[in-house]
């Protein structure tokens, strides 16, 4: 994808020991589970589903209280064993656990890969933005065929 070329030499520069702090989020008030899957729908063919449902813009799938801290357990139960990168709009999150194992270091994310058969637990603080937003699989084909949900954040 790229070639790095260099010549000559300079004395090595020290790397920074610390970058920016990634603050730990408070314990969550709510735990939700999202199951990513696929199936066949009459007249439609293949559909991609979150908790058994394909996206419907008229439906609110998840109601979150403004300022809540929530844990979302995102489980890839797709029988076709496809990976799904899970993306939450607007509200950055931290991965807490992957298949029950703590994340190796804290990091802010907006997309996390949930490999086939695996579960990722993420934590978000819905602190700043009331209103409707979405979460979805970041593979365009899956998202277009239903793997998306609406979250409504309200006080």
């Amino acid at each position: 994808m790229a070639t790095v070329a260099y010549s000559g030499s300079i004395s090595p520069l020290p790397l920074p020991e610390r970058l920016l702090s990634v603050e730990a989020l408070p314990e969550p008030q709510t735990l939700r589970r999202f199951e990513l899957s696929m199936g066949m729908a009459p007249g439609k063919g293949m559909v991609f589903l979150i908790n058994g449902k394909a996206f419907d813009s008229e439906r609110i799938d998840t109601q979150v209280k403004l300022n809540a801290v929530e844990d979302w357990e995102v489980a890839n139960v797709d029988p076709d064993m496809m990976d799904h990168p899970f993306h939450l709009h607007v509200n950055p999150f931290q991965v807490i656990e992957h298949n029950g194992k703590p994340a190796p270091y804290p990091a802010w994310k907006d997309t996390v890969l949930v490999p086939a058969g695996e579960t990722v637990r993420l934590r978000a603080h819905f602190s700043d933005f009331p209103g409707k937003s979405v979460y979805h699989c970041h593979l365009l084909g899956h998202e277009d065929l239903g793997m998306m949900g609406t979250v409504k954040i309200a006080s």
Partner: protein
Amino acid sequence: MATDGGSLFELVELKELLLSPGEGAEVLVRGEREPGEYRLLNLAYNHGEMEMMGGDGMMGKFSAR
């Protein structure tokens, strides 16, 4: 040194990095070996996508060799 959501707290040393669609990373490549040309490689990754769905399902695995 950073993910799609922002800076890490400290540098994490990696030889390979898996990025799925939508993910991002900032990396620092150190030029401290013999002067020359070094390739950054996009490695194959099987994400289970069926052939018929191909095209939009690109995932990159990235490595310095």
